[in-house]
């Protein structure tokens, strides 16, 4: 079986802070990591490799520095790593990103494609389903478990707000995975050593099965018009008083607001 996993390098958004004076994002010193849902997807692929035997290829689109997460993937146990890096990809929204990824995947052999549900920098959850559509494949999103049947079908569990569904997918498909369902394995020491001896393939737009007009900024129907740090509302009153007084303050406030 050939499995392709799409991963992304993201800033660790839990480490981002707002400069209280300039009211801007502080990006310096924020570590770059493999997106958590993607890492969950990679773990699912590696579990399938352990169980059924498979060749696992990871693909990412990004700047040359994204090489780092591909090395990490090697150290976790993947067989092949491809970095899509070209100025023509720059400024891509989710549609243009999914189109480029699909254009790369079309040139490869695969039985299953796995992606994370969403990336923590954008939180859109759009690239997986948009890519599935470009490839004309069925998709299952919010995946928490997947198994392969002998006939090549997949039995997939997905988590909704109010239910867990078990679905059967006929043949090749795209799964988008929740990090919470897959505890990613650690890199092995031998794997880390090996990771730097292995080749990360760097592909430009000319290697892909695409119409170059649909890549990057040109191929992106959405435009960011403006962005701004979130305005916090004016803080309310804070009391540091005895418990008895605190209770009185709360009760009076609840009465004043007609909440009791």
């Amino acid at each position, binding site marked *: 079986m050939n499995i392709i996993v799409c991963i992304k390098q993201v*800033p660790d958004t*839990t480490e*981002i*802070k707002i400069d209280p004076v300039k009211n801007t*994002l502080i990006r310096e010193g924020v570590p770059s990591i493999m997106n958590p849902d993607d890492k969950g997807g990679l773990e699912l692929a590696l579990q399938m490799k352990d169980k059924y035997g498979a060749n696992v290829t990871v693909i990412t689109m990004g700047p040359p520095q994204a090489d780092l997460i591909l090395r990490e993937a090697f150290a976790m146990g993947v067989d092949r790593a491809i970095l899509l890096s070209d100025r023509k990809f720059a400024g891509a*929204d*989710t*549609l243009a990103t999914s189109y480029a990824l699909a254009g790369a995947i079309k040139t490869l052999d695969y039985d299953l494609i796995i992606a994370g549900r969403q990336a923590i*920098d954008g*939180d*859109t*959850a*759009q*690239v997986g*389903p948009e890519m*599935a559509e*470009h490839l004309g494949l*069925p*998709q*299952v*999103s*919010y995946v928490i478990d997947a198994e392969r049947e002998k006939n090549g079908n997949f039995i997939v569990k*997905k988590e*909704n*707000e*109010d*239910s*867990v*569904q*078990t*679905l059967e*997918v*006929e043949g090749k*498909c795209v799964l988008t995975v929740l990090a919470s369902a897959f505890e990613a394995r650690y890199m092995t020491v031998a794997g880390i050593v090996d990771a730097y001896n292995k080749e990360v393939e760097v592909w430009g737009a000319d290697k892909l099965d695409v119409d170059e007009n649909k890549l990057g900024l040109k191929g*992106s*129907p*959405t*435009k*960011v*018009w*403006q*962005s701004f740090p*979130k305005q*916090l*509302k004016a*803080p*309310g*009153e*804070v009391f540091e*008083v005895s*418990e008895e007084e*605190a*209770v009185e303050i*709360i*009760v009076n*406030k*609840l009465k004043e*607001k007609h*909440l*009791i």
Partner: protein
Amino acid sequence: MDIKDYKNVYVFAEQRGGMIQSVAYELLGKARDLADALGEKVVAMLLGHNVKDQAQSLIEMGADEVLVADCPELKDYLTEQYSQVVYQMICEGKPSIVLYGATTIGRDLAPRIASRLKTGLTADCTKLEIGIVEETGEKQFRSTRPAFGGNLMATILCPNTRPQMSTVRPGVMQKRVREAGRKGIITMFAPKFDTSKFKVKVIETKMNCKCADDIADAKILVSGGRGVHDKEGFNKLQALADVLGGMVASSRAMVDAGIMDHCFQVGQTGKTVRPNLYMACGISGAIQHLAGMEESDFIIAINKDKYAPIFSAADLGIVGDLHKIVPMLTERLKKEVEK
């Protein structure tokens, strides 16, 4: 594509088990504002099996017209079945704007449609408005959403393709007051299915009964974080919620610790809530949590750490031990209720 040919605001009216979901009504409320600003109509798309009797309800909540696709193939949500129908409705109706709930259904369906139509989609919007372009005086649809884990807000445009599509999380927009007997058009839509593309089938659906009541619908929420410590701590919050007639909710920390179920989680990776009262007990107030509750009408925070960021979002802050204050408050309120 001549974008002038595209008119009207469409809403995907999500239903589950034949029940129209609250988020559909919330979207209709916002769609009404947008359509009025544009001088266009609000059209709801209702897909399912034996659901056509509910079309009038959508009209009473703001739709001018309802397109109903009612057939056995649409009983359960399945990506391809629903994509084919919504795609056909959009191709025939040429709306300028389409809105979807940012639920596990809407976030599965909307990107599929966007990719099929080759148009733009903006996820998890917290604000939708019709602005005026300064240079030309033209009306412009603007979608604002959080990015970078809620640290940054971005306003997104979709200037050259139609329709312009957005998803909105449940609890973010407000429903209109129901207008009983409101008149509108109900149109039955006959889908043309390409069944060769149907590759997914449902084997089993296990409902999660723990989530019978939805925290997004509660008027009062007593929410706990790391400072609550354990299940016993949550019992104290539950007692307070019972007196107030509210529900208990949770921060991510307590869900990750296995103490609370995910369906009670408020925040970026949980639910967005805007109750009349949100009491944050022992919650530090990470930006991902604030993103899910800061639109609440009134916020009370109880926390031992006076530097906790939750105090910057609270209308009333109490520096103190929730394990003492919450039970005392519960007793005090019981007396208040008896009066």
